[in-house]
């Protein structure tokens, strides 16, 4: 009971306090409001001020980050949208809280289903951001978004996302998940090549 422990402990806080200024001087001008500054503060080397000043600066989102799912569509040369989704329903089946609703399109003449969703809904008041839909989609048609700034005043009107709200172009997907996109495109190209080779062999 001599108070030495408390004094030693205060030494730790004092050291941290001094570190703050040393770090600021050391990284003068580069530490705040720059990408490398945010990276530095998120690295294992970080010392001193740890705060990332959202909304002026934001943490760097890792590629695998997941929030609400979105649907990917291909852009045609004239701006037409071609859904990747074939409404196979795997995402709706695998969804743990069952928040995905899909209406399949039926051909008006034959009544047979055609591979395109007529309607697609996600109830984001139920969605648990688990990422299963994106993981098990065989067509790379549904992916997890990076956008987390989704606060609303009225959930009843806004929080069931329809197909229009969910759809985003491939270019957006490629921009948020470049590695995944490159890997998938490569696999697709290989598959197409293999298919062509099989055809030629036949």
């Amino acid at each position, binding site marked *: 009971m001599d108070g030495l422990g408390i004094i030693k402990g205060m030494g730790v806080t004092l050291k941290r306090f001094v570190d703050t200024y040393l770090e600021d001087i050391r990284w003068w001008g580069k530490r705040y409001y720059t990408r490398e500054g945010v990276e530095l503060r998120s690295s294992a080397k970080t010392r001193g001020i740890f705060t990332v000043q959202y909304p002026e600066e934001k943490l760097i989102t890792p590629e695998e980050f997941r929030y609400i799912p979105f649907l990917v569509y291909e852009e045609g040369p004239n701006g037409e949208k071609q859904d990747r989704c074939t409404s196979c329903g795997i995402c709706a089946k695998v969804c743990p809280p069952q928040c995905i609703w899909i209406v399949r399109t039926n051909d008006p003449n034959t009544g047979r289903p055609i591979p395109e969703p007529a309607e697609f809904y996600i109830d984001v*008041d139920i*969605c648990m951001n688990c990422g299963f839909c994106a993981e098990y989609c065989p067509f790379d048609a549904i992916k997890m978004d990076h956008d987390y700034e989704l606060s609303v005043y009225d959930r009843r009107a806004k929080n069931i996302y329809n197909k229009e709200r969910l759809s985003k172009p491939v270019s957006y997907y490629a921009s948020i998940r470049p590695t995944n996109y490159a890997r998938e495109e490569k696999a697709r190209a290989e598959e197409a090549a293999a298919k062509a080779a099989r055809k030629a062999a036949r």
Partner: protein
Amino acid sequence: MSNEFNTPGYDIPPEMQGQVAITTLDKIYNWGRRSSIWPMMFGLACCAIEMICTAASRYDFARFGMEVMRPSPRQADLMIVSGTVTKKMIPQIVRLYNQMPEPKYVVAMGACASGGGPFKEGYNVVSGVDNYIPVDVYIPGCPPTPQALLHGLITLQKRIDAQSIKSVRWYQKEGTEVVPVPVLGPDIMDPREYELIRKVAAEKLQKEQAAAETAAAPTA
């Protein structure tokens, strides 16, 4: 600083810009309130951990004047409903809400508080805290990351900015409505719905009796 307050349309001489502002009472009133929102220290579930992280050094909502988290509802302006609201907990939440003085705001953080979330189907889960108390901002996500929570709080600030001292509910004659506290019965009961409960339960009884009669009929 003063530029933030300026109401457009008034000519302020260049040499006085930055020192003088012509503004409205609403703007000053709202600025004062939105810059010192004190949240209640009140965590429910997973989202509460993200709320603690938002209060900690990396996200630090002290930058918004929100660092004074009050454990007592009497001193709080903002209730962040951070997590799954259960039927067992809702009477307490309503009571806490009633104890908060005006002006008060409620943020439903995360899917569970907004609409039940992944646990919506559960027997002890309230599908949306807005079934009982009014909610100002809903933040989707499970759980919302600290930055998403900050975005929600900024959204709340925007809502405060849009209010007018003339129309805010706490200066109206009728005052604020007290939300009746739900009662734990065979299931959670909202005192405002007793009439409806009785009616639906009576219909159910009738249906059951009719079903029993038809089941008994062939043997008779």
